[in-house]
């Protein structure tokens, strides 16, 4: 059962179907959303675009849910899907090793070359010890996503999931459709 949902694109933000007002677009939109709706988590600025997007979407979702006690819990999973995996971070990391004359790989760039890092960022923020997973499918398909989330309730402890689509191909092109889902 879907309890809440959040949609973010470079030009539009909706929480439970209602438009959220904003002035910026693209990457600047994510920063604006951070400043207006979160503001107390400077780690945000270290994240790659995928993690920023997933983090902001999850925060908007959890703010609507209310009761943000940040108590450790194991009954909530974070299961995300997308098309481009960590392409934006991959492209950035590749640029640091492409030219033998300026070969300068860094751990800070490399760590984000895994799409599931965003699920870790959300877990760290909220102290979620539950399941985290990242799945790639080549096209957005709500049926596949919902079926997969439904299956995830086979875990003996999971009773709710932050789940859905979090995709970005570069810093200015992204889309998130994130759901807070309860056991159906």
């Amino acid at each position, binding site marked *: 059962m879907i309890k809440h949902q959040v949609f973010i694109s470079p030009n539009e933000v909706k929480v439970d179907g209602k438009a959220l007002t904003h002035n910026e677009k693209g990457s600047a939109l994510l920063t604006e959303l951070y400043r207006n709706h979160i503001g107390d988590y400077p780690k945000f600025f270290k994240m790659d675009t995928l993690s920023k997007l997933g983090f902001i979407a999850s925060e908007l979702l959890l703010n609507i849910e209310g009761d943000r006690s940040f108590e450790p819990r194991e009954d909530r999973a974070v299961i995300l899907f997308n098309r481009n995996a960590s392409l934006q971070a991959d492209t950035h*990391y*590749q640029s640091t090793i*492409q030219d033998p004359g300026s070969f300068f790989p860094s751990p800070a760039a490399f760590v984000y070359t*895994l799409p599931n890092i965003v699920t870790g960022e959300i877990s760290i923020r909220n102290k979620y010890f539950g399941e*985290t997973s990242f799945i*790639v499918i080549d096209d957005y398909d709500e049926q596949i996503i919902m079926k997969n989330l439904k299956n995830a309730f086979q875990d003996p402890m999971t009773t709710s999931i932050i789940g859905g689509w979090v995709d970005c191909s570069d810093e200015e092109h992204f889309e998130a459709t994130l759901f807070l889902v309860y056991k159906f």
Partner: protein
Amino acid sequence: MIVCVAHNIISPLSSTSAENYAAVKAGMSALKKYDGLWGLPEPFVASLLDRNKFTNEKYTLDEQVVIISISKALEQTNINVQSSKVLFIISTTKGNVFLLDKRETGFPQERVRLGMMARQVTKHFGNPNEPIVVSNACISGVCAQIEAMRYLESGEYDYVIVCGVDIQSAFIVSGFQSFKALSPDECKPFDANRQGLNLGDAAATIIYTKKDKVNDNEWVACRGAIRNDANHISGPSRTGEGSFRALRIALGDLEPEKIAFINAHGTATLYNDEMESIAIERAGLAGVPVNSLKGYYGHTMGAAGVLETIISMQAVDDHNILGSRGFETLGVTHPIDVSNQNRTTEKRAFIKLLSGFGGCNAALLMAKGGLL
């Protein structure tokens, strides 16, 4: 019950599961030192496939080894792979990432997308379903098996084909080098002098189905769990939080005495091996033998969870607890039971354990003949 019906491993050691197991049992390894490979400024030790042996120009090396591995597993069955009741799940961390290198021009750029890579595979086999790609860092191979179990439990598919793969490249090796995570020599899991991990190429396939009854010789995937440390994106929890929690669920009400061994991640990095020893002790499993296969294959990333499950099933079939190649003296603070020698066992179950970046951990309980 979710039952394994066929499997295969393509690795630098061999291209069948049985030969891979025999090679590991005999203590063989494909780890080698490479100096100047792919233009990398620093040498590294890795277990690499001979690129010259894979000559199909239509497919990348990743795609080729996946197709070969799945074909060899399917040969052992009479599954109609073109049926909509068969689902493909691919487990990989980096897939065709080498295509981002501007010098690579042999394939369309879109093949860097993991879903597009997976579609090459389902298209090759004529399977109509959208393939699922699990990309959950180093735990992907166990996550993909847990996904398979769930899809089969839900009754939607008759067979799920799980294939794990990763092929090493300048991208991956330089990244691990930047983390100072690579060992200058062959890795030494759980050893006092361990200095880091080695990377490896592999593809490995397991085909699962659901059955009401199993015979004594069939392998059952009993239960698995994925848990997060909620601690750090690139370092494991100091209390083994996620690993311990995943282990606890995989173990369930089974007595630890029934478990032949825990096949750990055992990457031979300082922090991973220490963390696993903490998690194993916290889960009340300190008395169960622990082994790592990284000294034979290196860390095969997306393939690891599948490959290491297959080797472990065959070890139990052979009444053998495989020794951990590279291990000499215990170098973790919690007293776990590791050996570099093969040991005998009559037990019929094992736990596969993995951890990865993003704070994720996974554990899977496998039992021959199912849990009685």
